[in-house]
């Protein structure tokens, strides 16, 4: 549980020296321009044509719609969040992975039972590297995997009885505060009603028990699972408890949405917010406990880190409780500073704004020497990244910090608005695959709805350079002529690496050793493999050092044996 602490003292002299007026005049709404393409980059239009040339005609046409040459001033329309062509060798996973693996998995004290054959539970067991610093006397099930280990018998005769019994056994052994149940592919097909079982067991055991219909085949990627997870968490947990009055003394209360504490990122964000005097009520869902989420309706602002996986939650919380949301990015030193300034601007408190400036100055003071040093070895070297639903955007900021331009990027499971920005939301067509994912209709809570800002206040913030409820997306912050690839395939990835010869590629574990076999270092940006944190200021320092190591490692020099090396001219 995150207990509110008094903000640490900051030097009065520094605080007094902050020019609050100047800070308040900054335009925080403009997208940051991406670093320009390196000179001598290949002709992007020809490259885009080559990229689809290895496919059968139908797949060529389909893939062409997912691959665009970027222009930040006239953003092209890109196809996203539609079915993957079978056989292309995609990076994508399934709905279950998005629901249990990404959004719910990191919650420490909800006992999570996967209803299905053993594999689904097994693969989601500790592989995401969600960290948590849970006190010894609190419950923490992160190192446990629970499953009904469905067998042929249940496939034929139904698995509801086994599920009910599994919940009973889990309760008897562990006495958790809450139990969540996740459906895998066969569950939907054989017609098991996990929600009915959850309701019955909730009545029987007297703890909160809720189910998720996140069968792997739903939607077109992990994305459907995020939405289902948001719905379930919102309907069953958010706002079910109230924050004690003793914890409501600080008005600067926020939730951190879409931060899963992979490699300790959330720890660093918690540290920075605490230094600024901002109280974190709940994170969705890294390093978080059930009751923190239950009390999250008492925050005064929702911050969105990973827009793709959690924007539904922010929208629903605004509709029901009146909490506005603000897109932030704590990946990258400059973008962390900008995000903190946005928070200061939102609350509009002069002391807070001053504190934030002092914290930024102090943290940047520590970071700058490292950044300057690393930059001498990384400046101008190019990067490609194909990952997730937000990181392929966020990490561009971190690379920009050390002068590395992103020549090509794309998401694995994002939607058009994550590429082109919130402005295209109304023009996104919902196809049959996405229409099957329930969209909850939310109305204001008769007792707890309290708009934190009036319409006028929000309009004033916007006029003053702070856009609320907005995500600009990846493409406005990428260079003209860079190539954006949605749901990249193996063949496309390999071709792009051969053409661009980047200094580093960011991708997932399935691509990692392909890339490294090609003699190019790969930074795995799903779970970081072993490293982190990379968020915030200390995380940025870690990342600079990590990338410096990777792109300048001695080992790349050793690939060619001395007897095979070309003689120097």
């Amino acid at each position, binding site marked *: 549980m995150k207990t509110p602490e008094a903000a640490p003292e900051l030097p009065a002299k520094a605080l007094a020296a902050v020019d609050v007026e100047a800070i308040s005049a900054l335009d925080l709404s403009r997208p940051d321009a991406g670093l320009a393409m390196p000179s001598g980059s290949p002709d992007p239009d020809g490259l885009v044509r080559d990229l689809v040339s*290895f*496919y*059968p005609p*139908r797949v060529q046409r389909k893939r062409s719609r997912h691959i665009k040459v970027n222009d930040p001033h006239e953003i092209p329309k890109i196809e996203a969040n539609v079915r*993957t*062509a*079978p*056989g*292309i*060798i995609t990076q*994508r*996973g*399934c*709905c*279950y*992975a998005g629901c249990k693996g990404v959004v719910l998995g990191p919650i420490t004290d909800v006992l999570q039972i996967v209803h299905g*054959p*053993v*594999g*689904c539970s*097994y693969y989601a*067991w500790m592989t995401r590297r969600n960290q948590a610093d849970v006190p*010894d006397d609190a*419950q*923490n099930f992160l190192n*446990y*995997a629970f499953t009904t*280990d*469905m067998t*042929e018998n249940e*496939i034929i005769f139904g698995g509801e009885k086994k*599920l009910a*019994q*599994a919940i009973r*056994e889990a309760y*008897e*052994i*562990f006495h958790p505060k809450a139990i969540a149940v996740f459906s895998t*592919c*066969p569950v939907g*097909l*054989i017609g098991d009603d996990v929600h009915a079982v959850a309701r019955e067991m909730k009545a029987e055991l007297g703890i909160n028990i809720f189910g998720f219909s996140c*069968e*792997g*085949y739903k939607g*077109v*990627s992990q994305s459907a699972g995020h939405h289902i997870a948001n719905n379930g968490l919102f309907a069953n947990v958010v706002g079910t408890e109230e924050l004690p009055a003793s914890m409501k003394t600080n008005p600067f209360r926020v939730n951190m949405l879409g931060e899963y504490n992979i490699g300790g990122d959330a720890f660093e964000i918690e540290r920075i917010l605490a230094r600024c005097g901002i109280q974190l009520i709940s994170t969705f869902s890294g390093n978080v406990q059930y009751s923190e989420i239950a009390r999250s309706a008492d925050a005064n602002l929702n911050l969105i880190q990973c827009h793709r996986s959690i924007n539904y939650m922010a929208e629903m919380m605004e509709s029901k409780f009146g909490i506005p949301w603000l897109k932030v990015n704590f990946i990258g030193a400059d973008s962390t500073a900008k995000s903190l300034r946005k928070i200061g601007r939102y609350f509009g408190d002069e002391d807070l704004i001053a504190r934030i400036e002092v914290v930024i100055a102090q943290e940047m003071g520590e970071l700058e020497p490292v950044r300057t040093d690393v930059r001498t070895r990384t400046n101008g070297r190019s990067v490609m990244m194909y990952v997730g639903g937000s990181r392929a955007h966020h990490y561009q900021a971190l690379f920009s910090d050390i002068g590395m331009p992103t020549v090509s990027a794309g998401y694995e499971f994002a939607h058009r608005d994550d590429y082109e920005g919130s402005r295209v939301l109304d023009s996104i067509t919902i196809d049959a*695959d996405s229409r099957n994912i329930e969209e909850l209709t939310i109305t204001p809570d008769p007792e707890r709805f309290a708009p934190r800002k009036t319409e006028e206040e929000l309009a004033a913030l916007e006029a003053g350079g702070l856009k609320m409820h907005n995500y600009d997306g990846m493409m406005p912050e990428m260079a003209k002529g860079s190539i954006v690839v949605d749901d990249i395939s*193996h063949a496309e990835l*390999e071709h792009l690496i051969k053409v661009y010869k980047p200094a580093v590629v960011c991708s997932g*574990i*399935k691509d990692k*050793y*392909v*890339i*490294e*076999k*090609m*003699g190019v270092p790969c930074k795995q940006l799903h779970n970081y493999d072993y490293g982190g944190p990379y968020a915030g200021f200390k995380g940025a320092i870690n990342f600079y050092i990590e990338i410096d190591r990777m792109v300048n490692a001695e080992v790349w020099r050793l*690939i060619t044996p001395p007897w095979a090396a070309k003689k120097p001219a």
Partner: protein
Amino acid sequence: MLNHTPTEIAERSALRINPAKTCQPIGAMYAALGIHRCLPYSHGSQGCCSYHRSHLTRHFKEPVMAATSAFTEGASVFGGQPNLLEGLKTVFTTYSPDVVAVHTTCLSETIGDDIPQIVGEAKRQEIIPEGKYVIHANTPSYVGSHVVGFANMCTSMATYFAKEVKSPRRRTTDKHQINIVPGFVDPSDMRELRRLAEATGLKVTMFPDTSGVVDTPQTGKHIFYPEGGTTVTELQNLGRGVATMALGWWASRDAAIEVEKKAYVPREILDLPIGIGATDRFLKILKFRGGEITKELERERGQLVDLIVDTQQHFHGKKVAIFGDPDHVLALTEFCRDLGMVPVHVLTGTPGKRFGEEANRILGAKAGNIKFEGDLFTMHQWIKNEPVDLLLGNTYGKHIARAQDIPFVRVGWPILDRVGHSLMPTVGYAGAIRLASRMLDALLDRRDRDAPEHQFELVL
């Protein structure tokens, strides 16, 4: 660490906690990588393929290429035929495999997709190029375990490729050819098994063979189909072997039976050659089938025995807990017994009551807790009730080892947090020397750590 695991053991009939197995398709995917120029193909949701590739990649730290039918809700309702047809078309056009090895998932099994029928349709539509093959194995995730999936794909290799022989009298035998089904082991192990068998003068057809596929060198190039893997020609000629040696009852037996059924090649069902006894039996059968045990092989064996003589004082009477895949665990149990240790807890996640019978036979009066279809929660509770000096198993044992503060040696699959297993074998005499050394290191590191200063020895 694992603070909520109580010492008191309550009976469970429905809840699996911390599994000691995973599902069939990943085993089938791994086996298929052992065919030369083969692309494994997962007929189901994208997530299955993604999870399996990720997990195999983490174990081998190598590219693991495989494609998926990418089922959506529509395919789940109306059947996956259009997805498989389109997938095959794209795969053959874009990635040019010689063989596509399709395995099913719980999804495609539950809706009852008939793979041979769909492949027949693909042939009719001329999606499969001349001289290329599509094979399949049914691998329902709700039956057996990853080991069973591996076995099913091995069996399919024989079913699809081994040339049928009409009667035993019509059989043409190459008296030097021995078929070996190596089991769900590392490429290093497959390499070592081949080396041992070839050292007896026999010619080896090993299937599958992932050496040269998931242990490739760094050359600055990614080779989509590396040079390793059993060739289609080798598989077609399985019927010429003097015998098929199945190493491991769970992972390999069915494939050897299939070769026997199709081509009258006698089967030899053996344990996985981990440790001295099982390796001895492996070589005995090679000798029986025409191989010659060379002085060099006897030297290797002698070196292993010598190492055990030199170190038995450190192993004697030490309690060990062993978990993992059944073929591995049984062989390890015998080896630990031969080292003078006491395997007090022996567990596999894979079903099969034969596991209990075999473990009891190996341990006799010393048999302690033995369980098939068990899980790591049970293993942890056993250890809490009767502590051990050493834990042997895959990476998932590290939390128990930390919680109970016991030395831990990683062996089996998967190993996600250490390297070496892909390149250095566990099987054979050399593998046993390496394994015994690692176990000894773990025991003696602990002794050194815990020794009072006046008993902290330079020489041990």
